[in-house]
């Protein structure tokens, strides 16, 4: 049997080839690539600048309110000014208390990283369905490439895309006025990518596990619609959890998105870092990733070979 396929490769062979196949669809298609960069800019513009919560308490808007107040006796010029200063102080401390930063944009921009990770990974379920429908999946299954590798290449490509987009978001956000926290250290960027890797592996495995059996493209779309927004808003990505109603706080406290965003905020924008909390964040997201990825790969073994 000397002429037989003599190359017994490692168990993980083909993983980069399959991952790169997915990535090529993205970086070799200029339109898709550009759109994937524009998308976070749009969202940041809309959510970060339009919904500028800080501006509600700004001295300008406070003066307007004060000038409309009809008080007896009317405020003197000095009193009015003092009130203005008071409100400004109030604004800073409210922002600091609620968002741990005086700038909502910075708060939101960081939430945007988790948001992009969620949406990019949500599409990974879809590509499995496409591959199944077009027959590529069957072809891959008839080669010695491992079932786990087929699934994990999808996970990995979504993860790498998200990490790249996160990098872009940070750069854009810096241009738009993101302020790093007082204790920021460039090394923390590595931490950002590390936790992003974990959450993307977890989320992507989750979406694939849910849609691995489906043959219709509508299924992953419905799943995406159902899951993504609740996951997003039942977390601290755009709003701190401590001012949410208690039932929502409970949901948010088990949502891995909350832990991811918290870790990223601690690393990038908070003035002081609670290292113990960051450690817990990493632990939680790490366990989430390992558990879901294991389930995903186990399901793929089960359902890819009918």
């Amino acid at each position: 049997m000397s002429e037989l396929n003599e190359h017994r490769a490692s168990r993980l062979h083909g993983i980069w080839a399959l991952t790169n196949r997915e990535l090529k669809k993205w970086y070799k298609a200029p339109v898709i690539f550009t759109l994937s960069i524009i998308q976070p800019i749009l969202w940041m513009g809309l959510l970060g600048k339009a919904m500028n919560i800080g501006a509600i308490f700004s001295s300008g808007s406070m003066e307007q309110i004060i000038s409309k107040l009809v008080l007896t006796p009317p405020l003197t010029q000095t009193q009015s000014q003092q009130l203005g200063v008071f409100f400004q102080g109030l604004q800073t401390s409210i922002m600091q208390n609620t968002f741990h930063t005086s700038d909502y944009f910075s708060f939101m921009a960081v939430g945007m990283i988790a948001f992009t990770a969620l949406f990019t990974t949500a599409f990974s379920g879809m590509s499995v369905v496409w591959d199944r429908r077009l027959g590529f999946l069957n072809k891959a299954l008839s080669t010695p490439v491992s079932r786990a590798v087929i699934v994990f290449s999808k996970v990995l490509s979504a993860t790498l895309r998200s990490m790249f987009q996160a990098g872009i978001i940070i750069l854009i956000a810096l241009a738009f006025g993101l302020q790093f926290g007082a204790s920021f250290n460039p090394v923390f960027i590595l931490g950002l990518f590390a936790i992003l890797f974990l959450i993307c592996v977890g989320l992507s495995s989750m979406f694939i596990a849910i849609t691995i059996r489906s043959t219709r493209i509508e299924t992953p779309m419905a799943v995406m619609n159902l899951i993504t927004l609740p996951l997003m808003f039942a977390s601290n990505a755009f709003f701190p959890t401590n001012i949410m109603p208690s039932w929502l706080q409970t949901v948010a406290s088990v949502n891995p998105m909350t832990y991811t965003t918290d870790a990223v905020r601690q690393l990038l924008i908070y003035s002081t870092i609670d290292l113990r909390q960051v450690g817990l964040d990493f632990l939680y997201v790490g366990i989430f990733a390992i558990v879901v990825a294991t389930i995903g790969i186990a399901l793929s073994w089960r359902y890819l070979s009918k």
Partner: protein
Amino acid sequence: MSEEIIKAEGLTKVFNHQLVAVDHVNFEIKRGEIYGFLGPNGAGKTTTINMLITILKPTEGRATVLGFDILKQSNDVRNVIGVVPQEYTADEDLTALENILLCSDMYGIPRKIANERALDLLKLVELTDFKDKRVQTFSGGMRRRLELACGLINRPKILFLDEPTLGLDVQTRTATWNYIRKLKKEYGMTLFMTTHYLEEADSLCDRVAIIDHGKIVVVGTPEDLKHSLGGDIITIGIKEDVDVSGLISKVENVKDVKKENGAYRVKAEYGEVTAPFIIETLRKKGYTVAKLSLTEPTLNEVYLEYTGKSLRDAEESREAFASQRMTMRRARA
């Protein structure tokens, strides 16, 4: 090693506990032959292939490919087989070369060897000039050839071809047949193919298994199958108004003579040899042969004989199916 490349025993697949797609089939494929499954849509051809290429688990029965059990040694099976699926599975966003290299990576072939082989294969299927073009721009025939090249990257001992010419025009179909013959002739490769085209089974396959409702109804060479029907049909007419049935039936190889509408319908083995003898016999007795026609039974008659229905009717729905697939592809692109 045994001469049997594939051996299936009681291979069965039941979907959802009720739909019997493949029903206890037994067959063996010998080294170096082109073995064809002929049957209509839904007969169980693709299901059988899918079990042999280890992407479907049989409900019952067993099969070996080059001696490897499809269930217990599935990874060994995958290493030695090549698959050309029914669909165009090449990635449209990649070039021809990139697609072949992707396949080679799935077999874990080192890049240096893969590059050499890929270029050889592109040459074999005459796509060298298009190696750096995206598959998106390829015609159906080019895609099929690319699939063929991808299926050969691991130098398989047996190549599975599922409906290799589905949806191709006549010219491209003939060209594809030539590639397949070349593989058999030059590489001594064993091929297992499914088809619903009678001409394809007839001209390509060394042995044909007619499969219907998940069961193999008959196996044999196309020639044997046709002969099994009792030979060719010779229709003969003479000027004189006399019954010569008795005379004709005495000619060697003639099996049956019937007078129909003033002509004689003669069932004979080896019609092309027998017909001249009949003419000679009649002439010797002074009769003048006015007309003569010779019909060889086609696989369609064989098919009709064994399954009770004509395969031609099934073809149309098949074409519709293929075009639907193309539409879906375009929708994606």
